[in-house]
């Protein structure tokens, strides 16, 4: 039986701009199981990106609790939080966010280097993961020399290389055509997801909803509906 990977309870996040206050998260309650692929969906400005940022530990909530694998990130000291993030979380971004001056292998090796792995070892491991995502031949290519789909595969390899327990993806297919988007999702489902690793994906892209184990629909800072092929208790 799987455990809870992400536990959010009454999460509140308010952005203050001058005199204006915008409540981005307004009492979010959400549990995500280990080995589950959860999609966060909803209209623009509903709080998806804020929620994923809080879950990934790169944004502090104003109220409520967010636990990752039983640990409350908010209570961690800064250095602990960095280490936790470096070891346990992988990121896939809409705009890929690869470092343009580094080739594919060097880009993929970055999380390992952040974790203190020696460059040669990191690049060896990065090359192996690139093989896994079908880009072994392109490991020396710069991002600019790769197609959008290939760049996203490099980004997935980067998110996987240090074996994180949670991968957060922000609109991973929205910059890709239909076929590339499906390939990326297939890759994420086949290679990234397993019983010890959880995927949280923010998306607008209805074409990929079918890949989700569950979907949380958000609106105006709330989760209005959680639906999916598997209810949480089954996922657990």
């Amino acid at each position, binding site marked *: 039986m799987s455990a809870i990977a992400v536990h959010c309870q009454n999460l509140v996040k308010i952005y203050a701009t001058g005199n204006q206050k915008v409540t981005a998260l307004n009492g979010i309650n959400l549990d995500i199981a280990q080995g589950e692929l959860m999609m966060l969906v909803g209209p623009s400005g509903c709080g998806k*990106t804020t929620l*994923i*940022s809080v879950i*990934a530990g*790169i*944004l502090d909530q104003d109220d409520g609790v967010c636990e990752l694998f039983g640990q409350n990130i908010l209570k961690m000291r800064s*250095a602990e939080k*960095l*280490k*936790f*993030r*470096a*070891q346990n*979380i992988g*990121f896939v*971004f*809409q*705009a890929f*966010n690869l*470092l*343009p*001056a*580094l080739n594919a292998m*060097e880009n993929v090796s*970055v*999380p390992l*280097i*952040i*974790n203190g792995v020696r*460059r040669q070892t990191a690049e060896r491991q990065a090359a192996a993961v690139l093989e896994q995502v079908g880009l072994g031949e392109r490991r020396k290519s710069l991002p600019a020399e790769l197609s959008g789909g290939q760049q996203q595969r490099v980004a997935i390899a980067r998110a996987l290389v240090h074996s994180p327990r949670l991968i957060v993806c*922000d609109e991973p297919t929205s910059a890709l055509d239909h076929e590339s988007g499906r390939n990326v999702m297939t890759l994420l489902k086949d290679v990234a997801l397993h019983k010890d690793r959880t995927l949280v994906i*923010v998306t607008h892209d209805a074409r990929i909803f079918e890949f989700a184990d569950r979907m949380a629909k958000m609106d105006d800072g709330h989760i209005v509906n959680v639906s999916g092929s598997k209810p949480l208790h089954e996922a657990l």
Partner: protein
Amino acid sequence: MNRIALKMLMGDRGKYFGIVMGLTFASLIMTQQPAIFVGLMTRTFSFISDVGLPDIWVMDAKVQFVDDIKPLQDTELYRVRGISGVEWAMPMYKGLLKARLTDGTFQTCNVVGLDDTTLIGGPPVMLAGRIEDLRRSDGIIVDIDALKEKLAKPSGTPNGKPIQLQIGDSLELNDHRAIIVGIAKVTRTFQSQPVIYTTYSRAKSYAPKERKLLSFVLVKAKPQQNLTELSQRIRKNTGLAAYTQQEFMDLTYQYFMKNTGIPINFGISVLLGFIVGAAIAGQTFYNFTLENIRQFGVLKAMGTSNWTLLRMILLQAILVGLIGYGMGVGLTAWFGYAMRNTILAFRFPWQLLVFSGAGVSLICMFAALLSIVKVIRLEPAIVFKG
């Protein structure tokens, strides 16, 4: 992470080149302009440093710098010789006289008259002839640069190169015949006038008739004699000014520093170079950081600490600083080498390397500081913004 920092820096060749060029320019201006300034200021006292043998220069008490000649009576020489601690004292004439060239034009020359017997105070380097040849009838020794340039004979053909005067050629100094018996190499003076050496008695015959014609008394102290004490004794007993060679050089240097616009003009050039270099390099480096802010955000989100990011930015700043500094200083050195045989004043002491190094370091620190503040304040959550 250092390797990543360097790759980020050099990834965009255009920007990298821009930052390095900004720093090169700043470093060049901060070394080349002061080098010219130092060269120029060195020329103000080059005549004194060229006369190596005497320990003390004695002159009228009102003299402000080496070319501010206030002649003494010849009897002052004997008064100085009579002071205890003086090994020897020799007369020197220094004055501006007009030389008539073969084409009928006139050129003002710096005529130096040396003691007839000892010829003390002569040119530092003889290129042709011997200093003793001054004892020949109407003999003069002329500096090589003057022979090639200001005293050269006009070419026989239009637009032809002037012809250098040679030993045996003659000049007319204040209506007196003068025969070139030697060629010397002297350090260029501030006014870059031709320097002509002759004997003291002959110099007096060339000079317009005046009651006083003794410019300086050159003094050698007895062994173990304290030069400061001897100078004081000369001042006390004669009422004249007496300076060690270094003091006289300092007096001349200070006169030009205080009474000419040279320091402020060069100071403005250097300041402008610093400001423009700082603006170009600082802004380009800051823009480079801004353009890479998302990449820094990604690294931060993935768990890179602020300390590591700070080290990365410092490494980038130090590298571009070193390259820019090296190129600037190298260009200055090349400039100095290329100009070594021209009239341009140029001197490049090691202190200038330290000065420009400090300037470039300041610029890099300033640029890095702006970037570091930006990156440290960066919220890693920006990586999720479209």
